[in-house]
């Protein structure tokens, strides 16, 4: 089956500026419980990175709780970054996105690769247009599964 990102993308998203402080970002992320990732943009609205729930949880765990400090999987480099970061740009994940004309399978690939439920959609200049999310994808595919 063939479906394009354009058909499913939505404007409902969490948008954060890269020079905001982490606590400001957390406040924005918690505003809308439907959104799961935060899209980090610069002053021209170009996508600079994303913040995943996993990243926020790790930051919180390192800052506020003892447990994760002894996880060997985190490594000294990561531990250092999470413990000292002040601004959103210091903790964000590398940017990843799809374009409106991409097929939704590309969005699915990214979701699987990075364990996330939302993928930012950008135009050819990298400006944030919207997001495509897990719920919209599976509900659009469900009819196909029924017919099968």
């Amino acid at each position, binding site marked *: 089956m063939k479906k394009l990102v354009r058909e499913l993308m939505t404007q409902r998203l969490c948008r954060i500026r890269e020079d905001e402080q982490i606590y400001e970002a957390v406040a924005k992320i918690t505003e809308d419980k439907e959104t799961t990732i935060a899209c980090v943009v610069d002053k021209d609205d170009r996508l600079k990175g994303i913040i995943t729930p996993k990243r926020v949880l790790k930051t919180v765990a*390192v800052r506020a709780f003892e447990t994760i*400090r*002894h996880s*060997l*999987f985190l*490594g*000294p*480099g*990561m*531990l*250092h*970054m999470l*413990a*000292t970061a*002040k601004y959103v740009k210091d903790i964000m*994940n*590398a*940017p990843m996105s799809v374009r409106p004309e991409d097929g939704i399978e590309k969005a699915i*690939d990214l979701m699987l*690769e*990075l364990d996330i439920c939302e993928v930012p959609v950008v135009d050819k200049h990298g400006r944030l247009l919207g997001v495509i999310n897990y719920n919209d994808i599976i509900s659009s595919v469900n009819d196909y599964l029924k017919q099968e």
Partner: protein
Amino acid sequence: MGLEVYFKFILSFALILIAARIGGEIAERYLKQPAVIGELVAGIAISPFALGALINDPIILSFARIEHAQFFTAKGSFAFEVGEFNVMQIIAEIAVVALLFVAGVETNVRAFLRQGKTGAWVAVGGVALPFIFGYFITMLFYPGAGSAAWLFMGAVLTATSIGVTVRILMDMKRLHTREGTTILVAAVIDDIIGIVILSVVVAVAITGAVNVAEVVRIAVLGFVIWFGLIMLGVKFHKYVSRFLLNPFKRSGTMPIFAILVGFLIAYLVTLVDLHPVVGAYAAGLMFAATAEKEEITEKTRPIMLFLAPFFFCYLGMQVDVPLLAGAAAIAAILIVLAIAGKMIGCYVPARLGGKLSHNSGMIVAVGMVPRGEVGLIIAGVGLSVGAVSRELFGVAVAVSIVTTLVVPAMLKPFFKRQVASKSEADKPPG
């Protein structure tokens, strides 16, 4: 030689890794010490000089070599023969390449290129003095050991352990401070210096004499290669991603391919007489500047965590405790000088170059004391090329364990004194 010999290596492999994990877990969870310490101690406990002797088998928990291994060509005709080789040594070699690759990928290359100046001064001071101390003290105690052994013991004392310092600073909530940043940058730089020194001392050990032209050639090559690979990563990361990483993204094996490139580069640098760890570390640094850094780190750490304990446990196994007891005097002196050398070597540049206060300078100086992975790697290589005796090797391991254990207690008074002038300490770095 029957197949069961090879099967016994599997048992050995499993036993060493299980002992290492248990030791590491106990150290981390109950003693609040880095896992490396637990792995080393587990190795010492199961070594053929301790518990391993009870099994009384040349292969299980011992260092049996496979002798006269023969290699055949595809058609079955005899091709060549290797005199003897140690299977465990080969696994340890692979483990250390994986370890340094991951250490390289994790390095915050951009931050360290940006704010490296004070750190670089502190690192150089902290490398020079302990190196000189190690060299001359060993020469004093073991005049017959030869310049290769003296150089190795000097090199063992050079590199601060990043992993240990990060933990200690975090536990004391001092990672944010200017001192914390200085220590971390310096620890990164002295690792690089230590690894390049390793290549130099190996060359000296193999040729048997200090050939100045050769030393300069290797040191220059080492820095050129790692600087070249960092720059390749920083300036051309798009191409590194496009040609090396992207083709393997779809199948999800991109991080695995990255570490394989690390192994390949680790071998390639040996063609110009550098040690494989230089290549592994530099390859890691190259990937550290790409957008895929995080994914590579996250997915190759498990591989490293699987293998690296083998390396440290295997190192611990080489420590002959009764023999070490005989070298207690030099061990004690080297430990004291390892601490004093690092402190003086780091304090002076921190005060003069970094313009830190006395108290901050002392925090940097003490924070740089723990020696870990890189010092042990250097000692292990020294043992395997025959430049360092088993006795001196034991001393090197003791230095690394003791310098790690004493630091938290040594740091506390300086942090306490700093609480009074806290506002100054919490200023952001830079």
